[in-house]
């Protein structure tokens, strides 16, 4: 009797377990078996990667939104040369390995005609190399060195800035208006170093006085341990060559000691998310650079149009990372229109080179020699406790793009920054 019961129970358990295992295996498997998208006729396919998980997911989400807006606007107008634009996006987890797998899938499986996205300059270098090998246009949405030196590639286009450009813009303003004695906190990886190089060069050009620098590892949460050095140096300008949570922690802790009142804090690159996370400590003594701030809507009709469309759809203004994606998507589609082809990649690339457009700010262009978007850099200062909702900062200056980018010949050799000797 007992054994029979046992047997029944065992069988039932076994069936349940198998059903569960089957469900686990098959459930997610179905889209996989059907996921093989063949290159459809009459469609242009664009694939992008964004960090939708991890510490920068807020910026990744903006990239997705803005790209969606651009694609939907074009499709509403009837697509490109009679074809609909099909867009797919993937989570790259801010992880180079995942990003490269995504890129491979987008190209080899989804048969995308061109790819874009990414928020990390490091990842953009790897994707750029991959896209180059596969002769596919790649539109980077992030600050990247990929247009410099050996990384220059016929198919890679950079739509934010070269890191040094951001440094040249902020440093020029800081040395002119805020003071010439400066000290820097630099995130210890290539992007941070590139910014520091820009500051050092500008400092030499303008005769500013460099008092010192500390390298803080990426992901530092306690900056107080660096403050002793800074307090001893007594700079007029304290430069932040870092991002995200690092920048937030640094500014908050500077305010804790009242240092934000004793010196001007200049963030070479900042973000609305960071200003929100810092809160009241991001006051008028803290200045930051952005390639786009929604306050530009009062200056340019194009900005107004873009911001209004974006806010109508997503209910909040866009970060610079999203704006970059919007421009990138628009520019390649405009290039297709100009070249009158959606398939001939060589012609599309040629049409993008030197393309002039006005989309979100004043008139801009994509430089033919190194595929860098030449755009202005916006400097903002915080509003402290007066910040409300998304009204987070006041624009203090807009530095024109031509003044902060080196010549084609220099960029090809990474000059003059390759000659800058960084402090130990």
């Amino acid at each position, binding site marked *: 009797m007992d*054994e029979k019961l046992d047997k029944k129970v065992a069988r039932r358990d076994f069936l349940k377990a198998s059903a569960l295992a089957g469900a686990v*295996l098959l459930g997610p498997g179905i889209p*996989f078996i059907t996921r093989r998208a063949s290159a459809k006729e009459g469609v242009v396919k664009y694939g992008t990667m964004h960090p939708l998980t991890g510490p920068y997911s807020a910026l990744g989400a903006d990239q997705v939104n803005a790209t969606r807006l651009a694609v939907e606007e074009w499709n509403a107008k009837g697509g490109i040369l009679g074809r609909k634009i099909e867009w797919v996006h993937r989570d790259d987890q801010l992880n180079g390995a995942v990003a490269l797998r995504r890129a491979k899938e987008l190209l080899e499986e989804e048969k995308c005609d061109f790819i874009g996205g990414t928020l990390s*300059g490091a990842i953009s270098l790897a994707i750029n190399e991959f896209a180059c090998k596969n002769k596919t246009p790649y539109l980077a949405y992030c600050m990247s060195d990929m247009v410099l030196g*050996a990384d220059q590639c016929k198919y890679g286009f950079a739509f934010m800035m070269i890191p040094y450009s951001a440094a040249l813009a902020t440093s020029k303003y800081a040395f002119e208006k805020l003071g010439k004695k400066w000290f820097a906190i630099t995130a210890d990886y*290539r992007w941070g170093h590139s910014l520091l190089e820009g500051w050092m060069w500008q400092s030499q050009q303008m005769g500013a006085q460099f008092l010192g620098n500390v390298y803080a590892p990426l992901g530092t949460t306690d900056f107080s341990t660096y403050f002793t050095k800074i307090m001893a140096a007594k700079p007029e300008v304290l430069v932040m060559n870092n991002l995200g949570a690092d920048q937030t922690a640094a500014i908050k802790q500077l305010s804790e000691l009242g240092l934000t009142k004793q010196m001007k804090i200049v963030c070479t690159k900042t973000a609305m998310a960071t200003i929100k996370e810092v809160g009241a400590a991001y006051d008028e003594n803290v200045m930051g650079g952005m390639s786009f701030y929604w306050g530009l809507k009062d200056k340019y009709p194009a900005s107004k149009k873009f911001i209004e469309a974006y806010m109508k759809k997503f209910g909040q203004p866009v970060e610079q990372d999203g704006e970059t994606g919007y421009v990138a998507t628009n520019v390649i589609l405009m290039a297709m229109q100009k070249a009158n082809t959606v398939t001939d990649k060589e012609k599309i690339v040629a049409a993008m080179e030197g393309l002039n457009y006005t989309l979100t700010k004043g008139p801009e262009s994509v430089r033919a020699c190194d595929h860098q978007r030449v755009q202005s850099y916006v400097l903002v200062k915080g509003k402290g406790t007066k910040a409300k909702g998304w009204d987070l900062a006041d624009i203090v200056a807009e530095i024109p793009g031509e003044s902060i980018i080196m010549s084609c010949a220099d960029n090809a050799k990474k000059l003059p920054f390759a000659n800058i000797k960084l402090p130990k």
Partner: protein
Amino acid sequence: MKQATDKKAMLTDVEPKPRATIVWGTALVLVALPFVISVPLSTEILIWTIFGLGFNLLLGYTGVLSFGHAAYFGLGAYSAGLAIKYWQVDILTGIAVGVVASMLLACFIGALAIRRRGVYFAMISLAFGQMLYFTALSPLKEITRGEDGLTHIMATVNLFSVSLDKPKHLYYFVLAITVVMLYLTWRILQSPFGKMLQAFRENEERAKACGYNTTLVKFFSLVLSGLYGGLAGALNTLYLGYVPLTSLFWLTSGTIVMMTVLGGRGTFLGPLVGVAVFLFLQNTISLFTPRWELFVGAIFVVIILIFPGGIMGTLREKYLSRKMVKLQNKAADFQ
């Protein structure tokens, strides 16, 4: 208590006789894989499976949890990448360099920490893994290129004079190595060494009392596991043509733990099934929501609570208990 031991003894009696068919059968399925799912995903499944086989040897068969396995994976990836980039060695030598480097690291960590108790070893290995990560990030950035990762490693992937640049060609190259590793794992498990590992996992004290040097065996198991990790890392370098810094990050360690536990610790096919299911889940859920980590984490918690044996472990247990009931019935009939 006694009943439980009896039950266990009976279980081992009804356990199917091991045959290598499982290796060849699996190989056959894997040959067809890139025709069913995407080639990059298939390749990644193979690479993680190799990593998982080694990890399972340590966690599933020896009962040692390492939470810093990214160290072996990452070191293998970097060593292979550096050797190919700077010494221009062929890919097989590059792989060998990666494997040897990871085994040496495993020897070092093993010598330092393998004597520690289970959870202690988990924390120590995690901390060592992070130490390697931060070392590659900042102090060694001249060599590792820090956050950028190692790019421009090779223009083309060639095995002797055969080009492996086509995704499918590289897949079958990795598959050949995977099958070798599957077979090797199977042989290890059938060998006296493999039996010894499992004896320790079941009851370390008893094994000690029988005069075995448990520390030494655990040490060898760790080094073997390092070999698999290094190999997987080196293959990942060939597959990506790039070494991301994240290969050393603790999340890589966490991922292989989740995959192995999901598939079934201490089962031969557990790692393969776990890797496949994990990547399926990750890919599929992230198509619908960016919050896929919530689902993967929750599924993992449920597996731990209800099916601690993982998918293959639970299936195996059910199969065995069913078979045992049959045997019992037979015995009852006989009486």
